[in-house]
């Protein structure tokens, strides 16, 4: 049965990565009859992306820790949410999911980068802020003719003990029905099987003189890609989209047959609303670690999906964490701009590849054409030279 499920899933992923377009439907607290009642219990945005053969469900939950769960099911499966005070197993699907991948904003760190190394491990002091203690509001939802959906979660206060934070922390999810590139730098290439998440830290007051921020993300991957998760990086030459960034990081959940869910990002943050290459700074990535801690997972929508089977030795899920800190040496720390904007992609299937643009293609083509003509001319000159040599030998000229 498991093997059959794997084959179905791999085929699904393969076909979806070729036939890309999907139709999007967005709903806030899906299936809720009494909005006032539901919204007290749940801040759940649901995006359904229907393809020809299957459906990808995006569940963005800001009830506790802001999380994006991506679930792939057969085409007709529908979500059913039970709005009760007990979150356990409150989210179900009419047909069992083929694969689930989730990304959770777990903690926000502020650290004092005394030596300006931009590495969290070298800090002498840090603050840990649980993302669930921000007062999240789902403030906006933009839907452009079912082609793209944008949802913004924003918070302007933090309820944690002994930590006073003013300023705005926001998380934006963008889901697109077609393969394309993001409108803002670093212009990540997205597919309908992926969501683009952006974390913005705007005007936060800092507790240290040399404050930088870092985020701890949790990921979970279900069967069949729950064997391992690895962070890899690859360089690329074409920075047309990424504006002076030549590196890409990929955190990929793997099974026996390759990759399932992934996080993908360019090591770049922007320090102003205008995400121009000149306003950029870098990110630092840390090791992927096991994260079996119930206290964290219980505050995520995965608990609503899996209940207690999320934890323990029998868990079918691969539970990991990774941290990313923002800034690079000599960039003046967070306080210089009071603004940080970081974008990453969460998705399932094959991570999207950059598309070679028409302009690049035509330049390379004309380059090759000119080189070919050059080579022909040089060949002719060489032949002429050879024949004149031969003549001079034969006729002694």
């Amino acid at each position, binding site marked *: 049965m498991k093997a059959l499920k794997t084959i179905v899933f791999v085929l699904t992923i393969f076909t979806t990565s070729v036939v890309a377009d999907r139709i999007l439907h967005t709903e806030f607290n899906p299936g809720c009859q009494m909005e006032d009642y539901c919204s007290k219990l749940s801040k759940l945005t649901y995006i359904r992306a229907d393809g020809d053969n299957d459906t990808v469900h995006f569940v963005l939950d800001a009830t506790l820790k802001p999380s994006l769960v991506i679930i792939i099911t057969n085409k007709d499966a529908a979500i059913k949410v039970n709005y009760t005070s007990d979150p356990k197993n409150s989210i179900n699907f009419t047909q069992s999911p083929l694969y689930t991948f989730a990304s959770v904003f777990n903690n926000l760190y502020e650290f004092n980068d005394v030596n300006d190394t931009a590495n969290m491990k070298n800090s002498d002091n840090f603050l840990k802020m649980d993302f669930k203690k921000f007062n999240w509001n789902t403030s906006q939802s933009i839907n452009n003719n079912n082609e793209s959906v944008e949802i913004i979660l924003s918070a302007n206060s933090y309820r944690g003990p002994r930590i006073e934070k003013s300023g705005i922390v926001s998380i934006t999810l963008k889901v697109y029905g077609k393969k394309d590139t993001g409108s803002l730098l670093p212009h990540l290439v997205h597919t309908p099987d992926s969501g683009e998440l952006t974390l913005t830290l705007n005007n936060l007051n800092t507790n240290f003189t040399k404050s930088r921020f870092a985020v701890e993300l949790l990921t979970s991957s279900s069967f069949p890609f729950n064997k391992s998760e690895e962070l890899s990086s690859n*360089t690329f*030459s*074409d*920075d*047309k*989209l*990424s*504006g*002076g*960034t*030549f590196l890409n990081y990929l955190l990929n959940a793997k099974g026996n047959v390759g990759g399932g869910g992934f996080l993908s990002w360019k090591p770049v943050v922007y320090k102003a609303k205008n995400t*121009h*290459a*000149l306003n950029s700074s870098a990110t630092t990535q840390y090791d992927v670690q096991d994260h079996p801690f119930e206290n964290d997972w219980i505050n995520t929508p995965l608990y609503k999906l899996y209940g207690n089977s999320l934890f323990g030795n029998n868990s079918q899920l691969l539970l990991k964490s990774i941290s990313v800190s923002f800034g690079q040496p000599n960039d003046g720390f967070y306080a210089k701009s009071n603004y940080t904007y970081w974008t990453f992609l969460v998705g399932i299937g094959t991570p999207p590849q950059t598309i070679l643009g028409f*302009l*690049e293609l035509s*330049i*390379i083509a*004309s*380059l090759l054409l*000119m*080189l070919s*003509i*050059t080579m022909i*001319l*040089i060949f*002719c*000159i060489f032949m*002429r*030279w050879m024949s004149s040599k031969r003549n001079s030998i034969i006729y002694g000229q």
Partner: protein
Amino acid sequence: MEESHPTSSADITDNHERDCKVTWTHPSHIFQRLIALFLMCLIGFGSYFCFDNPGALQDNFIQDMNLTTSQFVYLYSWYSWPNVVMCFIGGFLIDSVFGIRLGTVIYALLVVLGQIVFAAGAYLNALWIMILGRLIFGIGGESLAVAQNNYAVLWFKGKELNMVFGFQISFARVGSTVNFVVMEPLYRYVKNQINVPNYQSLSIVLLIASLTCVLSLVSALLLAWQDKRAEKLLHRKTLEATEVVKMSDVWYFPKVFWLVTFIIVFYYTSIFPFVALGKVFFEKKYNFSPDSANLINGIIYIISAICAPGLGLVIDKTGRNLFWVFLSILGTLVSHMFLAFTFVNPYIAMFTMGLSYSMLASALWPLIAMVIPEHQMGTAYGIAQSVENLGLAVVALLSGIIVDSDGYYMVELFFCLLLSAALLLTAILWTWDSLSNGILNMSIKQRNQLESNKTPCAEKQNLLQNNDTNIED
């Protein structure tokens, strides 16, 4: 190769008596000529040092003054724009109005003034004042180069002229290189020592850099004095310019000349604008620290400073200019392709580019002398330099815009495109040459044979050469 000087505005006649004893104080003694050579090199040092000040401090300029890359590139394009015409006018004014000595001093003064205005612009955080400074600096700088070449012709024609040009190129590159090595640490030092806003520490650094221009000015004055003395003692008389740069001459130039000019334009536009943007490129793509990014960016100039005279000698011995030109452009194209498409250690690409660049300078510029009659040489070199400046200004502007909107990959592709155009033009030129008399790609032996068939020209011999023969005797 003899004719490879960019200007030949003055013919020299000399009434010096051959049999007098030549001591080291005498202007025709080798010692005096060495001093003159040293001063000539110093004249160019300041302007070359300061020319690449913005390149060496690119990210500091951009951050401290809140510039975009395209605004930053103005600092280079406004240097180049006026020189689209100033190459004519500067040379013409030396010939007809100022004379070589006064002209040099005036242009050196303009360079100092331009750099000071540039620094003042940084102090006031006003981009337009900085651009004005670069404009004045450019007018002075490029005409100073013309004047420098005139001096070289005046003192060395018929003797060590090629070597002197080689030395001048080397010294100019030394100026650029020292700039790339020194400016970043100097900026950091000033920033740590003096507590003023960043753009004001930038201005202080630029003011310190202007001292090199003052040094050039002093050299110009000393050389003027030495030249005046030489003129008096040698009873040298410079004939009034008989070859006034005339615009109408342009229409009678052969097509080959224009091919060479366009090769020059396509080639140099893929080098200088690249160096101007290179620092941040190396920082971003290869994760270099600012210091090592400057070092690798300046490596073209370092190699050129070391190798230019030597490679010039290779061409002197082998001839075959078109072959060397083709090889140099191919080498540069391959280097740019490595930088565009791969992550291979960029030192390899930059080293190749540096060698190719040095080789090309020695092989390409003399081609003009081979296709243009001597009396039009000044016009020809003036036109070539002007068109090159036009190309540099346009490409500098374009490449800034491309980096801002489409990143470094596109700008590298653009440079590759320019170079393959240069390569194609070279192939066309070579084809034309092999179909006609083949003069451009002759070996030295063939060239000597051709020369020996011509009657020697008496005007080519001048007194300095004769004196040397006497000394050696």
